[in-house]
């Protein structure tokens, strides 16, 4: 057997190389810089510079891109406009995420634990806290996650996709476990997320094996061609395809593969929830788009009903369960499940419009998600001794917030309205684009369900708005709940709020960019 060294065009991978290389350097910084405070400053500055540099490189590549794009590694990696568009979206989320990671309260308390290895409530933990230790590994971990997700958007091989999936998933599992407050819940969430993630990874890779068994191929385009040739009723192939899709739907958080979302969203440190909620969904959607459009499209008929069923279930269950939540983070988690359903609506008919609509939808959704969790991270309980405690996540604790800090509550209201798809917010344009793509693909029954679900969903979003603005400030809430205005979190809120409005009022520019990104480079034969 002859092994041929693959030819790799390294240049188009520059953004990913920058991010992953910097993540490795970040680990070294952990080892060599000794004072926690200095380490944090260096890590934040370094991470920001790296992410912005990567964003710049991505945009430069977009500008310099000739034709459809570049095949980086035969059948394995392709950098085309579609990939660059998703990478840009993920980098934007990464930049906002890293700023949020660094936010701390006025008392200087970060969102992350002092010592990740200490068991909750133990002596080591107390000592570490007293010494002012801080887990600053979160910054390189975020870079690993961003790098893995970027890779996820341009991989064109099922096995390679698995590698990228694990690169960002492992980083996220660790990040979820590092909350400073409510550590047990955080640990539990991480463990659940990890176990279920491992389970779904196993399902995915088993699916890849079955696809290989049916087609003797593992790359997207060759698998697509092989499906054309062999009978599309081959049970081996169909089972493999379903397993692969389930692996991705798990990352997307669609019903019935959603069970991890509420727990992970609730237990994770809020900055992690913000980043994870926005970026993981974007990465999963990007991969789903590429797989469905460049590989599995001959099976459209067979898998369409699965997409339809999962979309309906996600929208209905996500909405209904969000209605009854009394915890803000869980409510947003179930809302994210409903949004997974809305995202899947776009796949009805596999139209070209959907390819342009989805990055916009995810950008709009991600900005609002990061913004909303940035607000959540600033509403705090006050402990008995008067210091700032954990986040106030019970809905009742948000009553009258609009009267106490109108701007923060106003921003939250804006994000919620964007989730609900009220006009002049980014969410409205996103929903509109996705729904019209689905109608163009003949998916009007799905759109019907989606419209009703989003109308019902408006109730629980608006319920929180009502609670913030139209409810009296309860007795004594001033002593129990405090609004912490950390400058970095406020920066994130302002930027995302501006983004939501701009994308809602003047979406034309961004839409046309994504429009021109609606094409894939598919290697016809090799």
């Amino acid at each position: 057997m002859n092994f041929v060294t693959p030819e790799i065009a390294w240049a188009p991978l520059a953004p990913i190389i920058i991010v992953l290389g910097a993540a490795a350097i970040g680990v070294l910084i952990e080892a060599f810089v000794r004072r926690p405070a200095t380490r944090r400053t260096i890590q934040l500055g370094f991470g920001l510079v790296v992410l912005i540099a990567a964003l710049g490189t991505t945009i430069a590549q977009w500008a310099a891109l000739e034709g459809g794009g570049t095949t980086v590694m035969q059948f394995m990696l392709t950098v085309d406009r579609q990939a660059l568009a998703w990478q840009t979206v993920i980098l934007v989320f990464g930049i906002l995420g890293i700023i949020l990671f660094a936010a701390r309260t006025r008392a200087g308390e970060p969102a992350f634990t002092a010592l990740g290895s200490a068991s909750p409530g133990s002596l080591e933990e107390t000592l570490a806290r007293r010494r002012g230790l801080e887990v600053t590994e979160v910054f390189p971990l975020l870079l690993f996650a961003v790098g893995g997700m970027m890779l996820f958007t341009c991989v064109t091989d099922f096995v390679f996709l698995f590698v990228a999936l694990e690169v960002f998933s492992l980083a996220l599992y660790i990040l979820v476990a590092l909350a400073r407050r409510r550590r047990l819940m955080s640990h539990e969430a991480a463990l659940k997320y990890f176990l279920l993630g491992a389970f779904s990874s196993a399902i995915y890779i088993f699916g890849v094996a079955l696809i290989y068994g049916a087609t003797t191929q593992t790359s997207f385009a060759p698998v697509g061609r092989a499906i054309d040739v062999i009978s599309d009723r081959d049970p081996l192939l169909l089972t493999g395809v379903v397993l692969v899709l389930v692996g991705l739907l798990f990352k997307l958080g669609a019903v019935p593969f959603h069970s991890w979302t509420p727990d992970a969203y609730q237990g994770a440190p809020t900055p992690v929830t913000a980043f994870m909620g926005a970026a993981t969904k974007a990465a999963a959607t990007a991969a789903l788009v590429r797989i469905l459009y460049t590989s599995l499209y001959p099976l459209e008929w067979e898998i369409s009903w699965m997409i339809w069923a999962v979309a309906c279930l996600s929208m209905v269950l996500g909405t209904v369960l969000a209605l009854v939540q009394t915890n803000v983070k869980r409510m947003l988690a179930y809302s994210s499940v409903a949004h997974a359903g809305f995202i899947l609506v776009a796949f009805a008919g596999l139209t070209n419009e959907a390819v342009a609509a989805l990055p916009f939808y995810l950008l709009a959704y991600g900005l609002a998600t990061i913004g909303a969790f940035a607000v959540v991270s600033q509403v705090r309980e006050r402990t008995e001794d008067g210091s700032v405690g954990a986040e106030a996540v019970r809905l009742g604790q948000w009553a009258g917030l609009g009267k106490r800090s109108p701007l923060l509550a106003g921003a939250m209201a804006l994000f919620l309205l964007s989730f609900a798809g009220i006009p002049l917010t980014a969410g409205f344009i996103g929903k509109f684009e996705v729904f019209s793509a689905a109608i163009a693909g003949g998916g009007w029954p799905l759109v019907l369900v989606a419209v009703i679900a989003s109308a019902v969903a408006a109730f629980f979003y608006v319920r929180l708005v009502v609670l913030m603005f139209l409810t009296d400030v309860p007795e004594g809430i001033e002593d129990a709940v405090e609004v912490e205005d950390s400058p970095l979190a406020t920066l994130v809120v302002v930027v995302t709020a501006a983004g939501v409005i701009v994308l809602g009022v003047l979406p034309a520019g961004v839409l046309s960019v994504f429009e021109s990104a609606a094409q894939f480079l598919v290697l016809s034969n090799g």
Partner: protein
Amino acid sequence: MLTLTWLLIAVPLASAAVLLLAGRRADAWGHWLGVAASGTAFVVGFVAFLQMLGLESEERATSVHLFSWIPGGELNLDAGLLVDPLSMTFVLLITFVGTLIHVYSVAYMEHDADRRRFFAYLNLFVAAMLLLVLADSYLLLFVGWEGVGLASYLLIGFWNFKREYATAANKAFFVNRIGDLGLIFAMGLMFSYFGALDFDSVLSQAPEATTAQLTAIGLMLLLAACGKSAQFPLQSWLGDAMAGPTPVSALIHAATMVTAGVYLIVRSAPIFNGAPNAQVVVAAVGAFTLILGALIGMAKDDIKKALAASTMSQIGYMMLAAGLGPIGYAFAIFHLVTHGFFKAGMFLGAGSVMHAMNDQVDMRRFGALKGAMVVTWVTFGLGWLAILGVPPFSGFFSKDKIIEAAFVGEGWQPWVFGGAALIGAGLTAFYMSRLFFMTFHGKARWTDEVHPHESPALMTVPMMILAVGSAFLGLFLAMGDRFTHWLEPVTGHAEHHEPVLPVPVLIALTLILVAAGGLLAWLRYGRAEVPETAPSASLATLAARNDFFQDSVNRAVVQRPGQHLTRTLVYVDATVVDGAVNKQARGWAGLGEASRRLQNGQVRSYAATMLVGLVIVVAVIVVGGL
């Protein structure tokens, strides 16, 4: 100037933004900025109107391109404005009445600590309402549609320190969402049939579509219109919306926003013209609501709620006219304009009365106010004569035309619709006269602490101007069919048809019924003693007092099943899927419990859920497909 119509929206919007962002600093002058913004909008609108008058009637429609909104793909949509006689009519009505109500509010809200915020919301409303009527596509109209809903919601709940007021705001929001769904569905249908959402493409392609398609779109538009215009079966929110400050009731819940549904239907005329069945449903909804509103109005003792019922009933007239097709469109808008004047005037009058009576609204504790408040009495009286349809006041010209048009046609329709319109006129005369006599005539039944006095000039002057409109606007616009000709480029030319009864007979019948209604009201509420508490009444009156149990019906039909569905799903999720997770949300007690939770197999149940889902999918795709 026509190309500068975007200023109409931009100026009030900018003012609202300034008022909201400036905070307490703007408390001293904020209300005058609000008045100025609304006034500027009126001036811009009026200049544009004069310019439009100078054009030939075919050239009066101008498109104003704003910016490319949603480009690319199947649908290329620009944000633009459509300035034509129909939208211009609304612009003038909204900005003129709106400005007067702004001025009135300066005095009415004087003692409210949040007056600045109130004006910000009013400006926001004006901007959104103008966007609604000026939009050149259904999608942009939807933006305005949601915008007025939001402003209305904020203003109903403005005094949210009272719990029931916040509840009223929520109710308005929820009922309106149902209507909004109709508009969204209608847009979905248009997009799939015509591939476009702008008025120009949709309405020009409408004649080529099948009747079934047009009927579907038409019924969805009607659902939207019912939500916004408080028509049966979505009328329940309007009475509760009276919780808002009275100027809001005058502007939003009488003169402008609630008529948006009529605008939507008249604007979509080519769709309804091709769908006769949808038209009949529109007319039937209108006829039913006009009787229903009148019956509710007869039983209410709360002056604002009685006026709200009357608004519902009068919009029923407009809906009925809009459902009659080309012969009715112009009259629907005509009545909408005159109604905007006389009903706004009466609401302001009611506000003036409340101002004098320590914010009481129970008419059984009014009476004999004509001596204490002469200006209010006279201006309210003119509005009263106008809504009764007494010649030569405004309402006579507009309402009588609708009654005549309703009697045109073949078969059962003219008799049913015309009959409803005719009976409605009699009922209107009764309940409006009841309201008028109970408030201004008879014996004083005041509570001890009130000392009625006339309102300040800032309040009475707008009332006087509106009263002049209530008195003469109808005559002015009806002379030489001026208004009908003005709207002809939009609504199309209507052939003249003879009603099934001769016109003089109809006029005579109407006037007899009106006189009878007025007289009966005088005998029972003007001359006779009015008890200070509502007497026990027949079942029918009780039903009307309770809005014909609309709330109970809503609860039974919508709310309960919804709750049960939710509870069932939640139960399933909680027991089967979620296990102990909900417990965790409830009690987050000690470490021991937490560590126990970790081992109780939830993750297993999560994984099991995934596996079951996976197995089902594989089974259906693979086994089912084989």
